[in-house]
């Protein structure tokens, strides 16, 4: 029987979570449908005037992506917590932070990436230009992993609590505001002629920070919650 390495265990966690997501496809789809529905509510609420919708588009799409991510975060640890597999992960012979990062990556692939792919389709409904759509996609590609990771901290802290998803959102949304600001700012910079690159690089910097710190913080939060 061979021994698993740290990267082996990392890939194992991702493969496992993806396998589980495939068998529970409904969960994946509901997040996506929620995203589409929230975006569609805005024209219904504010009227179909194209000029206004075009202006609102980046904000609407980003807020909807944010809310959809929040919804799906409850699932990050709760199923594993309930059947005891989370405890076993905490007893793994490799760093818990690595395993947590693996779960976050899998979660993003299942909940965040579909949003990134769906967003341009919805952006067309808001008459966004091709260049704006491009910046939107890159921004979401950088930003949605950050949301998964910051949300992971919230999910770990609220593990098993009654307040559930709403409490998690309350804790995590303020922390996600910078991502929202830079993401929408990047898209708006396309039309105002300001620097798109500066916004995107700020997002990139936040992504690097999140990658460096959130797995470890989340691991600590898990240990606190499991006591």
């Amino acid at each position, binding site marked *: 029987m061979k021994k698993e390495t740290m990267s082996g265990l990392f890939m194992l966690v991702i493969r496992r979570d993806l396998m589980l997501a495939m068998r529970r496809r409904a969960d994946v789809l509901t997040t996506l449908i929620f995203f589409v529905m929230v975006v569609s509510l805005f024209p219904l609420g504010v009227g179909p005037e194209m000029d206004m919708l075009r202006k609102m588009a980046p904000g609407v799409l980003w807020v909807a992506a944010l809310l959809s991510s929040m919804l799906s975060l409850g699932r990050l640890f709760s199923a594993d917590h309930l059947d005891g597999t989370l405890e076993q992960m905490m007893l793994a012979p490799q760093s818990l932070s690595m395993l947590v990062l693996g779960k976050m990556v899998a979660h993003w692939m299942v909940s965040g990436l579909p949003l990134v792919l769906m967003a341009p389709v919805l952006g067309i409904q808001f008459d966004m230009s091709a260049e704006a759509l491009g910046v939107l996609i890159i921004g979401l590609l950088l930003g949605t992993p950050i949301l998964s990771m910051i949300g992971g901290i919230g999910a770990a802290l609220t593990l098993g609590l009654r307040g559930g998803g709403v409490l998690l959102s309350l*804790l995590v949304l303020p922390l996600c505001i910078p991502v929202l600001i830079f993401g929408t700012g990047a898209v708006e910079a396309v039309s105002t002629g300001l620097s798109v690159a500066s916004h995107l690089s700020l997002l990139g910097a936040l992504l690097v920070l999140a990658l460096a710190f959130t797995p470890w913080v989340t691991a600590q939060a898990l240990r606190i919650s499991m006591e």
Partner: protein
Amino acid sequence: MAINWFKYSAPTTFYGLAGKLIPWFGISAAILFAVGLYIGFYVAPTDYQQGEFYRIIFIHVPSSIISMFLYLIMAGYAALGLIFNTRLSSMMATAIAPTGALFAFISLWTGALWGKPMWGAWWVWDARLTSELILLFLYLGYIALHASIDDPRRADRASALLAIVGSVNVPIIYFSVKWWNTLHQGSTIKFSGTSMHVAMQQAMFITLVACWLYAIAVILARVRSIILERERHTKWITELPEVKN
């Protein structure tokens, strides 16, 4: 001095110390408030730009400053509690949160009262006010998380972690909100560019100190009641006159 701190880091001794200190802080706060507000409302001259309404800054500015500092102090106590496992540190963090939230709320409310005569609107998306609003959300999140967890140890440690994550995020959030504000050429609530009259400076400083003293008094009182509740099974609590009735 080092020895003194450790003696008072036990809830038992701190309870007594806090009890003795509260009246001092409370009374001096009341006196300074009276002095500060007198100077602010009567002695300081009418501002040539903003008329009488500006006087609200004597409450608005101190409460903003204090709400921000209290968050950092709360995060500091929370970190101490997490790292060193000291019960009292966690209790202090829990005691600070509601007061911090209150000051954040007062800051927002007085900001609105100030804004209305100035801009005709009850709310302006000024960078500082918006950051203050987010700070209030951070406080409320801390309080909500602590309240949602039954086990006191887990509650303390989880909210401590949240407070630390929040305080690390505060500079990032503030920076991004400022960025957002300048991008959208938002309005800025600023006091008139000219230097402040001496009386105004005095009033501001005095009310700031008064608010601090008030905050300390309230927090000490709250931490005493938290100590009573948490330690209610221990012997020394049952021997206290308040508890024996």
